[in-house]
Structure formats: C-alpha cells, structure tokens
C-alpha cells in the first residue's frame, strides 16, 4: 500500500438548504486516501457519500473544513482555477454514464482532450490507447444509444482516464449494470489502480463491487468509519 496521502478531507461540513430548512449532510468529517489507493464508500441513500465524492472532485463546495488533493487546497480555488485543476487531476465516472448522445464513443472519449493543446493525431493515439485498455476499441464509431450499458460505462471510464488524471472518482459505476458486466467494469477499475497507479474513490451500494477496493468506508448519518481493509 503506498504511503503518501493524496486526498485529505479535514473537518468538512456540508448542509443543503431547502426553502428555509437547513439539511445537514455531514459535519466534521475527515478522510485520508493514499496515492494509488482504491477505496470504496458505502452507506444508505442520503448518507452523504456522493456529496463527499463531489466535494473531492470540486463539483460541490463544502461549507467549512478543507479538501486537499495532492497538496492543493481546492476548496479555496475560484471557478476558473477549479475547472483547470479538475481537467488535469480528476476523472469522473457516473452511474448513468453521462455520455453525450450526439457524439460517438470516440467523440465522447476525446472530449477532455479538447482542453489540451494536442494535435489530432496525438488525440487519436490517446483515444485508441485507452479504448484498447478498457476493451471498447471495436465500438468507437457507435453512439451511446447503440451501446450496451457495460459498453457505455467502459466508454465513460475511457473518457475519465484519457487525459491521464491521477484521481478517479466513481459514483455507483455498476449501479445500472448486471452482475457479469459489473465484474468486467470493476476489473478494469482495479487494473487502472494496479497498473497505472490511479487513486480511485468509488461510491457504491454493491458489496461485490466494494470487494474490489483496498479499503471500504461506511457512511452513516454523516459519519465515516473504516469497515474493512482487504487484499485486492
């Protein structure tokens, strides 16, 4: 297990406002994830695990506390800086894939590279490389509507890693997949961690998916507890 802390969430609090009602999500929460680690966050719906994931990815802001990623305190970043940081540092994988329906698998995977000053041939090389890695290279010309759920999620994973970010945030990546396909997707994530050294934080309800992680955290009533540490 690598030693260096990559993600450090300290004393973080988050509330939502619904009308005049303030709904607490978590309060005083802390989490440390080492570089190259693969952790799973489990817990009931509404426990705040996805909100924590979004805060780590800079998609949502916490009310107090700090979120430090690879030595950078991102909760102090402005929007523009946060966008640039996210493009370089974070790959996102969602339950509902969130692919753009108008683009082919190739176009979807290529999207993050629009932000990098790369030649067309270099972009093509990178897209084909990651597509090959997640075994979706034979479906690059197809649109999301022509792909199965497993294929769509593999496209989403390829898109998440094409710009080579060190951190992957996965929100229920197997939530819409059957058991066999879930296994394939989890194997890919495990490989990305083991062979490419990606740090992966995954939110899941599925114990069999969580079993692929190095460490599983349980979320309940805004509190986080280490459930188990397991061999990959």
């Amino acid at each position, binding site marked *: 297990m690598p030693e260096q802390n990559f993600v450090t969430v300290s004393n973080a609090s988050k509330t939502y406002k619904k009308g005049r009602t303030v709904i607490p999500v978590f309060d005083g929460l802390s989490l440390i994830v080492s570089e190259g680690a693969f952790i799973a966050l489990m817990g009931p719906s509404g426990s705040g695990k996805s909100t924590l994931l*979004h805060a780590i*990815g800079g*998609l*949502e802001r916490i009310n107090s506390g700090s979120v430090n990623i690879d030595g950078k305190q991102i909760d102090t970043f402005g*929007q*523009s800086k946060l*966008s*640039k*940081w*996210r*493009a*370089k540092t*974070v790959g*996102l994988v*969602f339950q*509902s894939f*969130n*692919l*753009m*329906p*108008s*683009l082919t698998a190739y*176009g979807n995977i*290529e*999207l*993050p590279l*629009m*932000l990098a000053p790369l030649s067309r041939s270099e972009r093509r090389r990178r897209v084909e490389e990651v597509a090959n890695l997640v075994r979706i290279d034979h479906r690059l010309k197809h649109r999301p509507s022509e792909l199965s759920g497993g294929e769509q999620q593999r496209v989403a994973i390829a*898109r998440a890693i094409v710009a080579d970010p060190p951190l992957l945030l996965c929100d229920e990546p197997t939530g819409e997949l059957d058991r066999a396909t879930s296994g394939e997707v989890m194997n890919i994530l495990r490989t990305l961690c083991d062979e490419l050294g990606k740090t992966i934080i995954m939110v899941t309800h599925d114990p069999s998916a969580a079993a692929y992680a190095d460490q599983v955290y349980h979320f309940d009533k805004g509190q986080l507890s280490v459930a188990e540490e397991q061999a990959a």
Partner: protein
Amino acid sequence: MSALGFIGLSVKAAWVRSLVLMLSVAIAYALFGILAAFYLAYGSTGDDNADRMITTSKTGFSQPLPISHFRQLQQIDEVGAASIASWFGGYYREPRNSLHAIAVDPVSYLKVYGDDIRIEPAARKSFLSDRTAMMVGRSMAERFGWEPGDQVSIINERIARADGGQAWSFRIAGVFEGATEQIDTSFLYIHYDRFNEARAGNQDTLGWIVSSPAPGADPIQMGQAIDAFFATAADRTTTDTERSFSQAFVAQFGDLALVTLLVLGAALVSLLMIVASTTALAIKRRMPDLGILKGLGFSHTRILGLVIGESVLMVLISGCIGLALAATVISGSSESLASIAPGIAITPAICALGVISMIALGISASAWPAWRSVNTETVTMLRRN
C-alpha cells in the same frame, strides 16, 4: 474535435428543432430585408436631386396652380431653370394596369431633368415635335411590351376630355433610360399643351413646378424666395425639396411605408421573440450535456463560448439565407415596386445592419440560459440527465 465541430454536432443532434429554428430565423430576416429595403427606397425617386425644388399649392398637393405662376416664377432672380408638370395617370387596357403618366412641358422639362434621362436624339426630337407623342421609361415599356412607333390608347376616367371621351391616344416617340440604375423609369411623359387643351376642366392650371437655382444661388433660399414671391397671391405656394415632394406624392396612395413598417415590424418582432425563446429552451434542454462538459473541466468561459457561439452561428447562417431570399424576392419585384420604391435593393447597409442584429439576437437569445448554465451546480445539471 474542434469547437466548431462540436457545435455542428449539437445542431445535428437535434436537427428537427434546429431546422425549424433556422427556418424561423430565415423567414424573420427575409422579412427584415424586404422591410428595410422598402423603407430605405420608399419615397426616393432615385432621381432626387439636392438642387431641384418643387413648388405646389400651399393648400395642398392636389390643388392646382395657375399656369401664370410658372411664367412669374421664371422672373425670380434665384431661379435658374424651371418646368411644369401635371399628373395624368390613367390605365392601359385594364384598370389594374395603372400608369404613372405625367404631362410636362417637354422642352423645359428635358432641360431640368436632362442629366437624369437618356434618350436617343432622334427619339427626343420626335417627342418634342409631335404633341400626340409620348416618351416612355424603359421599365414601363418592358412591362407592357411597347416599342417606339406603337400607338397606345390610355384610358383616363378621372380626367374627362372636352369631347366626353375617356381614351387618349399617343404615339410612342421613344424609350428613355435612367442615367443611373437608381433612376425610376416606370413613368411616361405626354405633352402638357395637348393635355391642357383636351381636358374638360381646370384649363391653364398645373400640378407642380420644378425649378433649379441660378448659378451661385442656394436651392433652399430659392424656395424661400419663390414662396415669398407668391405670399400675397390668391394661390399661395409651398416649395420643398424633391424628396419631400416624392414622399408626399406617394403618400396620396396611402402611407405605405407606415403600414408596411407596422405590419411587418410587428411580425418580425413576434418572430424574433419566438426565436429567442426557442433558443433559450433548446439550451435549457441541453443542460445535462453542459453539465458533462463542466464536470470534465470545461471552464465557464469556454462553455459560454460554446453555447453563445452555437446560437450566434445558427442565427447567422439562417439569417444570411433569409437576406439572400429577400434579395431574390426584391430583385424579382423591383420593377413593379419601382414607382413607389425606386432602386429598391438589399444594400450593403442593410446587410451590415442584418449581420449586427443577427449577432445581437444570437447573443441575447442565449446569454441568459448560458449564464444560468455556468452558474448552476454541475451536479444539479448532471442529475437532469
């Protein structure tokens, strides 16, 4: 993929909506083009000259002036050349073929308008020497297929002949051209003397006097001098620029420009509002896609650029198609509009105004939803997926 390619794909993805939207914009700008061209051309006779002034009865344009005014006016120091004209009108064969026919004193009229009208010397001579001759503008001659030498009967129910007839027969002495394309040639000219002698009433009266200043004289001062000269006469006068006269002349058929402006303007504004709201709705529906881009690290500026760029590009493409359509329509109907809107065309100024308004429309239609999209939490946008 370039930003332009990305925009193209977005349009392609919702091609029905995009097509309808672009069609709406194209129609809106076709209307805009026609309206603007008409508005600019309306009231301009094309041969308006800054030096020429028109003198009419102070009572109103339709009130005749005595012919003696013409002789007296020529004695005013500031007046250089002057001529007379009276509206004749009438129609050819059927009432729908109404004619813009003017009775003029040929010698003096050709002297005043000599720089604007081009006619063969032989035809000119033929016109001057024959009181039953008429001189026809190219546009009108082509409209009715008239040739020099043709004998044409004009029916005039408004101006009765002394012998009770309504038909006036004329020989076409020649066809004149405008010195420039802007000069209206949908007119014909007949001899005032013959017209004056043959009509049943209003003898020795005229419709208006056109005059140009003497060398060194100012046309406005000339106009003031003319009106001052007739200030104590029984038939007082008002002298104005040729352009003002042209507009007042056309206005007797109804204020076409105002009606056009109101009707088409209302239609155009309504259409543009629909376009703006449709564009805004289209962007709102693309919130999940924009959320994906934000999630991937696209900056607010870049997303604003994509959204507004897409809107501006669509409006620009379809708007230009609309202006091209307007140019085609105007080109096809310029002859029939020549009498009220001579030289009507989609001018560079209209194109420039059109393009500026297209950009403004594209931005205004997309700015608010684009601004909302960048200020909505990425997660909220993704949840709409």
